[in-house]
């Protein structure tokens, strides 16, 4: 296992002016730029969230960076290799997990799939067995490896998928919407695993998602892409200060209560049985808002959620407007 080397200045991924056009050549009618002029550098050991709404170009970008797709224009090097020219050499050093595509063989158990993958990656049997045992411990998945894949829950299967990605100890982990469809507990566990893995072995994590919580709990840096264009690139703490300071509070009411008067709190909707509040946490903390709500109103249920990604992106555009 490699030693951790987070952000030591050595780029794992460098892309310059990447454009991928579908549906025609040149500027012909019907041609669409799924990715437009993407320039990006990711350091070794960095945990990057590459986020955007559905259709933003996240998956296309990951497919270009892993060599599945040729860009229409632009250049890229991943671990010093040109992905679409040296795809198989790159595959030996990276792991890729598509949340909506399995790399396990459904008719086999995960352990049998790992045996196949170990051979495909050219691992000798001893190294493969050692690595499978390590991953079973790390992902708490050892007891899942002998069950038929079709009997696993989605969360359990994703842990086995992650084991399949990590088997050959990749230097970069590309994760395309890995938390999609997982329940809250499974999502939290999966995010913790990614951080643990990054901290233990220095694996670069390139995570695409349209879930704001993935950014806050996994990434050190966030890149936002919308309509194929990069619109935001900053550290997560900086984004948290600016874009993620708003939280939504959903309150179930036993009966309607008096209006709240708190700085930074806006009532988005309310009726006799529920209310939704928008809280600017840079002005009033969530703890203070929850305390006031519980003291003032007769509450049957309460939850705090992140604003949808679309709202965050709208805020980014609003910030940039002169």
């Amino acid at each position: 296992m490699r030693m951790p080397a987070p952000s030591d200045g050595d780029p794992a991924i460098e892309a310059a002016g990447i454009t991928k056009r579908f549906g025609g050549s040149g500027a012909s009618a019907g041609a669409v730029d799924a990715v437009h002029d993407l320039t990006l550098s990711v350091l070794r050991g960095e945990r990057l969230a590459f986020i955007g709404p559905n259709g933003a170009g996240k998956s296309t970008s990951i497919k270009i960076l892993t060599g599945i797709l040729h860009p229409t224009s632009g250049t890229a090097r991943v671990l010093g290799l040109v992905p679409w020219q040296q795809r198989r050499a790159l595959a030996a050093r990276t792991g890729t997990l598509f949340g909506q595509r399995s790399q396990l063989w459904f008719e086999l158990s995960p352990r049998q799939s790992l045996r196949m993958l170990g051979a495909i990656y050219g691992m000798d049997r001893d190294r493969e067995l050692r690595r499978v045992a390590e991953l079973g411990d790390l992902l708490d998945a050892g007891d899942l490896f002998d069950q038929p894949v079709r009997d696993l829950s989605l969360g359990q299967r994703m842990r086995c998928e992650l084991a399949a990605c990590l088997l050959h100890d990749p230097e970069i982990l590309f994760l395309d919407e890995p938390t999609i469809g997982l329940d809250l507990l499974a999502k939290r566990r999966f995010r913790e695993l990614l951080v643990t893995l990054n901290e233990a072995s220095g694996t670069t994590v390139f995570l695409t998602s349209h879930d704001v919580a993935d950014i806050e709990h996994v990434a050190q840096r966030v890149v936002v892409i919308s309509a194929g264009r990069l619109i935001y690139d900053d550290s997560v703490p900086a984004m948290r200060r600016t874009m993620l300071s708003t939280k939504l509070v959903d309150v179930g009411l036993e009966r309607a209560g008096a209006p709240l008067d708190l700085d930074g709190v806006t009532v988005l909707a309310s009726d006799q049985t529920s209310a939704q509040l928008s809280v600017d946490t840079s002005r009033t903390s969530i703890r203070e808002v929850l305390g006031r709500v519980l003291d003032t109103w007769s509450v049957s249920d309460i939850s705090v959620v992140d604003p949808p990604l679309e709202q965050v992106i709208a805020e980014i555009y609003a910030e940039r407007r002169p």
Partner: protein
Amino acid sequence: MSVPLLRRLAVPADVSGRRVLASRDGLVVALLFYLLVSGILSALWRAAAGEHGDVAGYSAVALTWYVFTAEAATCAINVRMIEEVGDDIGSGAVAVEMLRPLPVVAVRLAAEVGRCSARLGILLLPGATFAWIVAGPPPSTAATALALPALVLAVAANLCLQHALAGAAFWLRDTRAMWFLYQKLVFILGGMLLPLEVLPGVLRDVAMALPFMTMAYAPARLASGHVEPWLLLVQAGWLVVLAAGAGAVFSAGQRRLQVVGG
């Protein structure tokens, strides 16, 4: 990463083969189907030959061994393979396989060779026993010895051609029509239903010149008592051509996928 390529490919073959042996339900159905079809076809051919007569130089005994061998060579293979591989390509599932350090088609072929070899092994013993009971021992021990490697080559050639054709899914939306046509070609021109010598002159020459003859006719001709080692050479030659063809189609298809998406 110094493990030799063949050893790397042997594992998918081994794991897939063991998986087949573990799935008893599927095996029982395949075996029953094989024995039923072979039993009916061989009875028809024996009736056509008569007790002491022959059909195109094949005696009743030879025809029985021909049918059981030709059917084993084709029943060992998943009949819907072109369709299934085509679906994996059309749905984009193959993209995951492109993110591995070995060629997609090599890994798929290795796994299928393992699967089909296991199935072939399961079919052969009861099939040979059945043929022996209804027709007597195989006409020639030497020819039978040649038929065994010929069966493996037949399965491998069949798999390669099916993958080459399934690779059309990189360009076409639907490969079902191709699967339908392919099946019929193997039935007739491959010698699965009838020895190629039964076909009329030109058609027989065409069939002998096509790769389908390696997939059922070649091992069946040997098992029916004809000591003709050149058939193995023809099979090996076609296998090289078909494997290269499957590799070329997948390479071109993946390049197309890389350029235009899919």
